[in-house]
């Protein structure tokens, strides 16, 4: 059954956990394994943390929107902020690249590793849209294949 939901919240660090629990609850309408749900949680956590830290520079008054869609066994997530934007998306996607010396530059790496697809659109001064997809694996529980 196709489904869609939209979540909007303030750019507070406390909302990172709220966002990942919400998305996992929505995703659990598909037959994802527990392992898949853990991976989705990490991806959401990274995207939302980026919006809070980089997009809004840790200011709490920004709005972050997540659009969750279930379509033919696939979960699509759009994590949107209306903040600073990214001047060089290609560079930003490189492993270990970070504009913040305190951070690891692994956010996009984790999103890419844990989801099937990652797409980043950004306009400096306007904001960033991170789109990620993940399908339920048809080959049975993923754990059995991977471990």
């Amino acid at each position, binding site marked *: 059954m196709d489904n869609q939901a939209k979540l909007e919240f303030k750019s507070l*660090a406390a909302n990172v956990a709220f966002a990942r629990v919400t998305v996992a609850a929505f995703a659990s309408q598909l037959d994802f394994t527990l392992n898949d749900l*853990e991976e989705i949680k990490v991806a959401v*956590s*990274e995207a939302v*943390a980026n919006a809070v830290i980089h997009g809004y520079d840790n200011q709490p008054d920004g709005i972050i929107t997540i659009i969750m869609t279930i379509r033919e066994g696939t979960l699509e997530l759009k994590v949107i902020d209306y903040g600073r934007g990214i001047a060089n998306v290609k560079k930003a996607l490189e492993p270990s690249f970070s504009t913040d010396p305190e*951070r*690891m530059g*692994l*956010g996009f790496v984790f999103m890419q590793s844990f989801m099937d697809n990652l797409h980043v659109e950004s306009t400096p001064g306007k904001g960033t849209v991170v789109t990620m997809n993940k399908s339920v694996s048809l080959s049975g529980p993923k754990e059995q294949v991977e471990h």
Partner: protein
Amino acid sequence: MELDLEYRQGTLFVRPRGEVDLSVADAFRDVLEENLAKNPVNHLVFNLSKVTFIDSSGLGVILGRYKRLKQQGGRVSLVGALPQVRRILVLSGLLTVMNEYASEEEALARAG
């Protein structure tokens, strides 16, 4: 996240519990820095057995402390990560620079 710390003869045991993400990263880092300033630490042991979730914001706190201790000639050990946390450690490359042990005792005995 809740946090338990224990200092014993040059070793600082760090035992976080719960979820280690952006919302606790600053406080986590500050407590560690404070303790590293207070005591002479040559071995930092992160016991991750009670950590149910970690992301790159949480890992950043561990990596930052690793860099600090390495400069001072100290070492960092990771203990007891659950499968989902361990995958993140692997993917981040942290396990290529830090040693991993099954228990705190083993970390103490083998990290020389």
